[in-house]
């Protein structure tokens, strides 16, 4: 799982049935100092996160299928938590 920041929303009226009635958000991973911040990807929202929230993202299909309780879901990235605080040594 990774820490990421929600930076955008995606609206799709035509989508795969597994994505119906769920929100897609654009997220950018948080990085350590000196690392490239340019990466971004799309994640399915499972926690009612919004733009500006720091979130926990599961980027693995099997975990996503467990979260969505659908053994056939074609979802890889799913937001599974909203981060309150982080402590880095």
């Amino acid at each position, binding site marked *: 799982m990774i820490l990421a920041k929600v930076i955008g929303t995606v609206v799709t009226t035509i989508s795969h049935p597994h994505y119906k009635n769920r929100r897609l958000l654009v997220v950018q991973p948080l990085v350590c*100092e000196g690392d490239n911040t340019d990466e971004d990807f799309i994640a399915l929202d499972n926690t009612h996160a919004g733009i500006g929230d720091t979130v926990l993202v599961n980027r693995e299909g099997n975990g996503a299928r467990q979260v969505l309780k659908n053994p056939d879901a074609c979802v890889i990235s799913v937001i599974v938590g909203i981060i309150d605080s982080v402590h880095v040594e």
Partner: protein
Amino acid sequence: MLFGRVHGTAVCTMKIAGTEGLKLLVVQPVNRKLEPVGALQVAADVVQAGPGDLCVMVRSREAALAMPEIRFVPVDLALIGIVDELHVLPDGTFDLVMKKGSTSYT
């Protein structure tokens, strides 16, 4: 999961069993600013997208799971949604660098 812009269609008459009837599209992966990332790729389509459409794509095993009915399909990129609206805040709006020590995000 990533964005892709449809650039055209791919047709192949000889293909491996399981992929018959699948619509193949040539797509360019793009980032949040809709700038091209990497080379053109071929994706299987389940949402009837057309050239010029901005789509949401899914990679790896989940692409095979996106196919209707058929299960073991040798597909590694699938289009699973057509983007109607995309709202992304400009770069620099949020600080993406984690600082040492405690940081509160609420």
